[in-house]
């Protein structure tokens, strides 16, 4: 009888494992079937687009028009001359399909924002200047004090309400100035007096329904570029905000509205609906895809905007893809897995995933497209020039010490170990092809010369301890470089490697691991002496934060930034070349011509080259865009925050080729 038991059990176990295997097997093939099914459904559209005359709109919208629930495409778009024609990168596309876009939930809001953003003025392909996007065009007077921005006639919000100059003026008067969404009025709206340095706010008025005029007291030559960075959406749907802003409906009714949206207070309600607006289906936008459901769902859906204002050169209304589906992933490795399984149409990755993505390229049926980055290096070190300890601060401010650190490391070895040889041995510097490029900079102090480093350290006056193992300060006190590692973003391997080199020339190192939030707090408190951060700057004139100490943000200038942002009340007073950078920046802001701007940015960069506050060991590695092989029109461009990463590739013209 006992035998029977065993037998029964074995049979049950085997059956169970078989069943498990079978069902999972099915799921695999089901998944495929699902895909095929979807393809089959969409196949009529390419046939229609290729054979008959070009269809001016997506089949899913054509159906709605036929059913009478949507107006015909001509009535939904701007007047013919004002329609924006979006050039395609490879070929005219076909309608249909979904873009699977794994995200981490609403914390990841910027990723999807950038992919769908429509700026008033956007960066051109090379990232050096801007072109009209939502705006149809602009005029500027000779001394750059008056900008006329022209809008597109007949353009509409995603709910069909006309988009006019009133929406720009409304945004300015009722949202930007009263700061309804938690941001102080952006810097781009101020002009600076060249003599007194006084900041004056711009005047913005409506000229007619499709023209607004921005007037500055003093010249503001970079207004459009800075607008494209500071406040790309220089407009808001007045008809929507009039139904939720307390200014229009009163505090009480607004609070009731906030509760409806799930908020408990008006401030956060204002921030989320005013600033992170693309996540709300209620809020009309001008984007190619608009939110359709709750952003906290397991799948957040954005669907094509029937009123989108762009077509391809054949007159087909964009976007090509029907929907963006944002599936919530707990961990970023899930996105990698899904991409490797071929489930993600287009995705962006860090260079750290390069090897695993390349290995699975054929199997996952995708291609890895490298994008250049405006980073100065892929590995490097920043010494806080205002670090608390006075002896350490003097040492960090000594240019010879920075040179010694630069000479102490074997760049070739770092390149091989950390970047697979893809980031060449190099100093932190501006890459060729970017604005303010300086010939020869990338070779400054790049030799691997420990003797030279030792000599420099001797010159500075650093002594050895009794065991002749570590260097000490001239007075014999302990010298330790404490490197702070921000978890998980900083490269652990690189820190271990660099510690080896520094210890090799007798500099004692220590590492502290902190999470993102603590790192942020410590930086503000000026408690971080050494970090392994690099800087990323497309053009210092557009976004100076990382190179000019305007506020606490980049580790190398520490509390110099606080001194500027608090107008001298707190922080450390900049001296020497750092003070010169700030002077240059002030002159740049008051510049009257673009040539002047160029001159001052060159000056700032040359000061950086001379001082090398940001030390680099290897040249930047590319950012990675992964596109499934059937997805077309995905170019290789420059990946930077200023140009909005994947958004720079104009995703409205991505399409799935059948």
């Amino acid at each position, binding site marked *: 009888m006992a035998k029977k038991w065993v037998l029964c059990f074995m049979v049950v176990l085997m059956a169970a494992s078989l069943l498990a295997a079978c069902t999972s097997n099915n799921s695999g093939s089901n998944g495929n079937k699902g895909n095929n099914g979807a393809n089959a459904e969409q196949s009529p559209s390419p046939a229609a687009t290729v054979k008959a005359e070009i269809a001016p709109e997506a089949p899913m919208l054509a159906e709605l028009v036929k059913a009478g629930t949507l107006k015909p495409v001509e009535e939904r778009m701007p007047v013919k001359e004002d329609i924006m024609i979006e050039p395609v990168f490879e070929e005219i596309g076909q309608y249909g399909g979904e873009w699977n876009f794994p995200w981490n939930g609403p914390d990841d809001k910027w990723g999807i924002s950038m992919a769908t953003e429509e700026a008033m003025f956007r960066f051109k392909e090379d990232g050096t200047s801007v072109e009209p996007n939502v705006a149809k065009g602009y005029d500027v007077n000779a001394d750059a004090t008056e900008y006329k921005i022209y809008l597109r006639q007949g353009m509409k919000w995603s709910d069909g309400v006309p988009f006019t100059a009133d929406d720009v003026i409304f945004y300015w008067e009722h949202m930007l100035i009263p700061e309804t969404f938690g941001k102080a009025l952006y810097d781009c709206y101020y002009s600076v007096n060249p003599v007194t340095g006084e900041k004056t706010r711009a005047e913005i008025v409506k000229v007619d329904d499709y023209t607004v005029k921005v007037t500055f007291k003093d010249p503001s030559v970079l207004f459009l570029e800075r607008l494209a960075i500071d406040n790309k959406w220089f407009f808001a749907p007045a008809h929507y905000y009039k139904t939720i802003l307390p200014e229009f409906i009163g505090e009480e009714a607004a609070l009731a509205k906030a509760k409806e949206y799930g908020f408990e207070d008006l401030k956060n309600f204002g921030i989320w609906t005013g600033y992170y607006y693309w996540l709300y289906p209620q809020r009309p936008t001008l984007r190619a895809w608009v939110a359709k459901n709750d952003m906290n769902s*397991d799948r957040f859906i954005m669907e094509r905007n029937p009123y989108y204002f762009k077509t391809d050169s054949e007159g087909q209304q964009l976007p090509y893809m029907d929907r963006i589906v944002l599936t919530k992933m707990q961990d970023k490795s899930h996105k990698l897995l899904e991409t490797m399984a071929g489930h993600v149409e287009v995705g962006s990755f860090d260079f750290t995933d390069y090897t695993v993505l390349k290995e699975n390229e054929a199997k996952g049926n995708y291609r890895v497209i490298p994008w250049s980055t405006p980073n100065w290096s892929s590995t490097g070190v920043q010494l806080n020039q205002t670090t608390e300890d006075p002896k350490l601060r003097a040492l960090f401010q000594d240019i010879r010490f920075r040179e010694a650190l630069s000479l102490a490391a074997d760049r070739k070895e770092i390149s091989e170990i950390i970047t697979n040889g893809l980031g060449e041995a190099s100093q932190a510097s501006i890459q060729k092809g970017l604005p303010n490029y300086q010939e020869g900079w990338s070779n400054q102090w790049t030799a691997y010369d420990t003797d030279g480093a030792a000599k420099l350290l001797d010159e500075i006056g650093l002594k050895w301890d009794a065991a002749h193992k570590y260097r000490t300060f001239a007075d014999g006190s302990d010298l330790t470089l404490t490197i702070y590692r921000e978890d998980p973003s900083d490269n652990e391997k690189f820190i271990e490697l660099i510690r080896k080199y520094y210890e090799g020339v007798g500099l004692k190192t220590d590492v502290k691991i902190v999470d993102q*939030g603590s790192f942020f707090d410590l930086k503000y408190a000026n408690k971080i002496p050494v970090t392994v951060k690099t800087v990323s700057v497309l053009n210092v004139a557009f976004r100076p934060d990382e190179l000019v100490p305007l506020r606490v943000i980049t580790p190398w200038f520490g509390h110099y930034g606080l001194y500027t942002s608090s107008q001298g009340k707190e922080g450390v007073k900049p001296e020497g070349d750092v003070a010169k950078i700030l002077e240059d920046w002030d002159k740049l802001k008051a510049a009257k011509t673009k040539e002047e701007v160029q001159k001052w940015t060159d000056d700032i960069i040359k000061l950086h080259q001379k001082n090398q506050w940001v030390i680099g060991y290897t040249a930047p590695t590319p950012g990675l865009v992964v596109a499934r092989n059937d997805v077309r029109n995905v170019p290789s461009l420059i990946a930077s925050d200023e140009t909005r990463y994947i958004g720079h590739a104009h995703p409205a013209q991505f399409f799935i080729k059948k």
Partner: protein
Amino acid sequence: MLRYMLRRTLIMVPVTLFVSMIVFIIIQLPPGDFVSGYAAKMATSGEIMDEQAMALLRESYGLDKPWYVQYFTWIIGILTEGDFGYSLSYNRPVSDIIGQYMGITIIVSLVSMVFTYVVAIPIGILSAVKQYSFFDYLATGFGFLGMATPNFLLAIILMFISFQWWGDPMLGLFSAEFTDAPWTAAKWMDLFKHMIIPVIVIGTSNTCELIRVMRGQMLDEMTKPHILTARAKGLPEWRILLKYSARAAINPIVSTIGWSLTTIFTGSTITAIVLNLPTQGPVMHKALLSQDMYLAGSWLLLMAVFTLLGTLISDILLAWLDPRIRMTRKGT
């Protein structure tokens, strides 16, 4: 008995309050607060928040007040209105978020629990009956392996196998086409397919433990005199096993069943993150990391309440199942 239950229930109230306060303090112990973490997160995606913006957020969330003010506002809200507060990272009431994930969490936990008991109890009995047989060694071997292997590692291995063989890592609980679909038979099928890996992973660690417990207890029970008597009287072996030995042996399992209550409502955490399951675990993990203290606090508070309730239920169940315990209770 009734008095005992009443007393136990009353003691639970101060314990719960005490736990809630400790929980609230511990969540806020790490340096920084929700806003600094949030600002750092936004900084990595290019949004720069200055001091002013951060101060505004702190004020609107009430983070500028001392912890005891925050705590009492929260606890009084729970006691008077059943309002568990407001999640800072989701910008929604806590009860909404817990509600959103509750259904799936309970389903996954219950199925894995059933899996555990259905597999563990028979194997435990069998390996006791056939002590030192090949089957016993096999079960013991697997048992120790299962106990020693961390759940998440097992999850990764199974995902890897699934990815290698079928090209699909089987993340989540639904295929893409079913996530938003209404609850049809096909959707249920899809759900069960996706539940195979999580259930095996979540179930095994407990399974192995239970096998060991069951086996040990059975070995103890099977040699007791009343079993010998039953056998001497000629009762069929299976009846002796099930009616006498197993009933007594199941005692320690029942006494811990109440503790599973917590697991049922909270689900597993690391495994759920690895497998991308839309359950409570990962949500709470994130809440703890980002110091979203009302969400994290409510969750830990619920866990505490469920643990207390579970213990109570276990005691009652035991008293009902085991006459010996009932007798002593009556005596007191």
